[in-house]
């Protein structure tokens, strides 16, 4: 893991002191709320319905067990005993007092954490996939470049007041598990035939009111030019992005207005001025940062483990969990374990209690190298578990309520905090998620359905990425009451697609039934084992619409 040096420590501590002073000035009236707002957002602090919410950065979703224990401490002492892991691989605390923020940030700084730029119109947390460094299909660990980007974008004075928020993600595996196509800048890292490390740069992805998938602006960018090329994109965006309308201010609108070719030309022209300057990355810097992500001391193990094999054979429940909650590891004899934060109605998606956090920290220390990852699907990952230890990990995870065998399945719902917390929401998300989870509690049925992602956002801001859920649910406001619009056919990854609306919105109480009918339609038309999204692609929306709305009328 990356470790702070004196520069990192100094920056974070000075930032805490600076923000403490700003809070002080807000409290004594020197700063108006209008003046304070962007300052607190750039320090991760939102004003929600009931209290302040603090969003703490988890750079590229990598966390140490020590840091996890600190998050547990904060949950216990400053919040109501839990935290919420988000789709940007961060954690949010929902019940924070403004007067406590300085102390919390100081506590975080002790374990090399901060909340800098987790909100605001600036470059946000750099994300990648949860299996970075361990995935079997990975070409190269994306985290050194993600860390280099994190540093470069942190308090970069020219780009702190952009037209709108700016999200960057990087992927270096065969499969895109980082939702690259829905980022303002998405980076695919690859090698050419000669072995040179190159980047394919996608720009203008984003969900929200106008969902658009990223488009390629640059192929074969040598990695050394990463910073200057992104600087060029940001400068073009900062100068020319719209600032008259919040909903048209993301870079995707600029790219769309100019056309991707014209946009790429602008960037290229800007880049020519700076590409061979001091921003060009050096081998030495790459090596310095990459050294922090060197593989831990793995044991030389056989890829098959006898005890693991017999546990699989002897324990059907364990086998079911292992079939869904493991990810192939690049080192023989190891696996990455996904801990589900979606146990069903008992706990909202992404919510983890202080006791669970401590339990996870302990698991990471005992059965790993003290490292934990946050997946953008809001689950947690133990990246390095020996196959021989999987059964023990499963047992402990089960005690902790983190072993629901539903990764990638319908009840692995991605949901934002919604109307229960968020002041932007049009509708609640959590009760909808819980009602669907209650309806699909039968594990056999769930597993028969196969891979099926379901995302619920409480408003157009699309924090839960509903557009790219196989089934997407969007909370909308109709004359002051809460309604839900349903889309199907969305997908993430290299085959990303935006879901299509099936028809008029539904009331909250109708949603579980609607989902069931969508699923029934799928089962009626499914060929072989094909996943839901393939069936939708093959047969189109009509059969789904017909079943949902015809019966809707009949039952009315």
């Amino acid at each position, binding site marked *: 893991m990356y470790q702070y040096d004196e520069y990192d420590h100094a920056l974070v501590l000075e930032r805490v002191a*600076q923000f403490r002073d700003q809070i002080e000035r807000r409290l004594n009236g020197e700063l108006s709320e209008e003046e304070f707002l962007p300052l607190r957002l750039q320090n991760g602090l939102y004003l929600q319905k009931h209290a302040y919410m603090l969003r703490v950065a988890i750079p590229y979703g990598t966390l140490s067990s020590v840091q996890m224990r600190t998050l547990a401490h904060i949950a216990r002492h400053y919040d109501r005993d839990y935290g919420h892991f988000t789709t940007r691989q961060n954690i949010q605390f929902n019940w924070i007092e403004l007067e406590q923020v300085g102390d919390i940030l100081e506590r975080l700084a002790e374990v090399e954490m901060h909340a800098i730029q987790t909100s605001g119109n600036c470059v946000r947390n750099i994300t990648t996939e949860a299996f970075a460094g361990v995935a079997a299909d990975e070409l190269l660990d994306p985290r050194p470049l993600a860390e280099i980007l994190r540093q470069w974008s942190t308090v970069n*004075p020219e780009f702190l007041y952009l037209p709108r928020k700016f999200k960057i993600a990087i992927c270096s595996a065969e499969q895109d598990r980082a939702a690259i196509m829905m980022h303002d800048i998405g980076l695919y890292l690859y090698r050419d035939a000669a072995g040179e490390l190159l980047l394919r740069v996608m720009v203008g992805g984003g969900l929200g009111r106008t969902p658009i998938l990223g488009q390629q602006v640059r192929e074969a960018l040598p990695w050394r030019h990463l910073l200057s090329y992104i600087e060029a994109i940001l400068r073009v965006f900062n100068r020319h992005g719209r600032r008259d309308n919040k909903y048209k201010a993301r870079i995707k609108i600029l790219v769309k207005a100019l056309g991707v070719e014209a946009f790429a030309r602008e960037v290229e022209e800007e880049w020519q001025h700076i590409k061979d300057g001091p921003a060009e*990355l050096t081998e030495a*810097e790459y090596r310095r940062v990459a050294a922090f992500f060197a593989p831990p001391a793995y044991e030389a193990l056989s890829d098959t483990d006898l005890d693991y094999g017999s546990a699989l054979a002897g324990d059907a429940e364990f086998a079911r969990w292992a079939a869904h909650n493991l990810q192939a590891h690049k080192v023989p004899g190891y696996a990455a374990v996904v801990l589900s934060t979606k146990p069903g109605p008992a706990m909202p998606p992404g919510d983890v209690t202080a006791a669970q956090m401590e339990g996870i920290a302990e698991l990471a220390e005992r059965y790993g190298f003290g490292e934990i990852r946050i997946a953008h699907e809001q689950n947690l990952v133990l990246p390095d578990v020996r196959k021989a230890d999987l059964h023990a990990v499963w047992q402990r995870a089960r005690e902790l309520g983190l072993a629901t065998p539903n990764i990638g399945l319908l009840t692995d719902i991605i949901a934002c905090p919604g109307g229960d917390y968020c002041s932007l929401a049009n509708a609640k998300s959590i009760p909808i998620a819980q009602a669907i989870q209650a309806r699909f509690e039968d594990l056999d049925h769930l597993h028969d359905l196969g891979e099926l992602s379901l995302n619920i956002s409480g408003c157009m801001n699309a924090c839960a990425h509903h557009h790219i859920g196989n089934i997407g649910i969007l909370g909308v406001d109709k004359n002051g009451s809460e309604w839900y619009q349903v889309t199907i056919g969305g997908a993430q990854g290299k085959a990303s697609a935006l879901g299509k609306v099936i028809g008029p919105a539904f009331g909250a109480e109708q949603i579980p039934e609607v989902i069931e009918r969508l699923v029934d339609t799928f089962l009626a038309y499914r060929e072989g084992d094909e996943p839901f999204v393939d069936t939708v692609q093959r047969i189109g929306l009509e059969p789904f619409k017909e079943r949902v709305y015809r019966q809707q009328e009949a039952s009315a």
Partner: protein
Amino acid sequence: MNNLIKLGTGGAHLVADDPWNWVREPLEPLPDGPLLLPLALWRQRQSEDVLAGRADSRDGLWLAPDDEPEELAPWLAGLPLIALEFPSFRDGRAYSQAYLLRTRLGWQGELRSVGDVLRDQLSHMRQCGFDAFAVREDKSAADALKGLQGISVLYGRSVLEPRPLFRRRIGADEEEC
């Protein structure tokens, strides 16, 4: 303009007797004294010699955020002062304009921020090459001075420090380009 902070060789200081009049709207008649004019008006008032780059201008020039700094290239040598406007402190276009003027166009004269200029953004402005700050009238310039320093660590680069931190670290110089 009053309520002004300037950076000089001896550090930052408050200026109480600044002669410049910021002409926000093309008023008739224009006030007396040195004028800080918007681009169109500035151009209108210059002699052919100034416009051709053969003579110095008496008038300062301020750019709105959607003006292109590149347009000033022919006149830079003869300008007494350039100001960049922050219509709102949340509008960050002037940071990029400042970068371009200082780094690409080579402007060495005074670069002043005007408009919604507040304490908590002064350090970013300074990093982007501003050396004069006309703090918003209702705010104390003496208080705003405290915002000038900002955070001492800069990971990336800026107008003041064109080398990113990775080129400034001890031992990082073997690969300087």
